[in-house]
């Protein structure tokens, strides 16, 4: 879903900036990489396989798959957790973000729903006893940014936190592992 642009505060920080394009669309731009995420309604729709003409991998992964509790790794502007809160009405939405500045910004901006829990941590070290129907790894832009070894490590670390019938989803690597 697209978050109302007027509710997202502009910000210039150490690690990233948030600002409006000429058309009024908000983007977050990461200072080191230059990578961006736009406040575009298709971002979460594509990731969650919610469009008929979407890449078949994304669409088919969610075909017949239901979920209610979700851990999203990587926050950005919070487009995916906001969709899970507003549209899917998920009962538990945890977001793990490595950068405290992004967490502080989102809290300060106030554009995310209050049922979204923001947690600071590195997914490669993070441990929890919580279990989820779906864990989404949304930390990379390009497939080469996560090696198969990295993915294998995450899979072995996170499988205990996935409910039976749940899934570990790394969209950029075309991974959707059902437990």
């Amino acid at each position, binding site marked *: 879903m697209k978050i109302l642009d007027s509710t997202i505060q502009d910000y210039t920080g150490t690690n990233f900036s948030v600002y409006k394009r000429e058309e009024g669309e908000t983007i977050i731009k990461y200072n080191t990489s230059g990578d961006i995420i*736009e406040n575009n309604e298709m971002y979460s729709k594509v990731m969650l396989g919610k*469009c008929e003409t979407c*890449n078949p991998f994304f669409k088919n992964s969610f075909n017949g798959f239901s979920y209610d509790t979700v851990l999203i790794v990587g926050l950005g502007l919070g487009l995916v957790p906001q969709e899970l809160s507003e549209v899917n009405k998920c009962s538990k939405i945890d977001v793990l973000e490595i950068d405290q500045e992004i967490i502080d910004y989102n809290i300060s901006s106030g554009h995310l729903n209050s049922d979204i829990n923001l947690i600071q941590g590195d997914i490669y070290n993070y441990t929890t006893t919580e279990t989820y129907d779906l864990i989404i790894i949304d930390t990379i*832009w390009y*497939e080469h940014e996560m090696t198969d070894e990295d993915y294998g490590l995450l899979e072995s670390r996170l499988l205990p936190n996935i409910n039976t019938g749940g899934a570990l989803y790394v*969209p950029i690597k075309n991974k959707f592992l059902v437990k």
Partner: protein
Amino acid sequence: MPIAYPYKFSDWYGYDKDCTTRTSAFRYNGTVGKPAFECDISRAITTQFWHNGSLSLPGNGDTCYTSAAGNNYLGNGNYSIAGTSYTGTPFSVITISGGSGVISATYSCIIP
């Protein structure tokens, strides 16, 4: 210096031996996000740019420019591109890095 007729022998040594033509293509007027998602996002792909590749669309290692001549490189970032001007989903998403318009990655939106 303009060439006068009849040709002088030196004129033949003065021609531009490196001259190459650039191919025109179109992009969304702005950088875009994650290539894997961009293939499903409809945009106005109507801003013309040029490249030195041998195919109609540029690929890895090709250099992209904002003009048909000169060294006006397309800036770093991801771009949704197509061979013609239209509004819709792109043919591919290119990544430019390094600051001199060179494509470091190409994500094809054509599903085999």
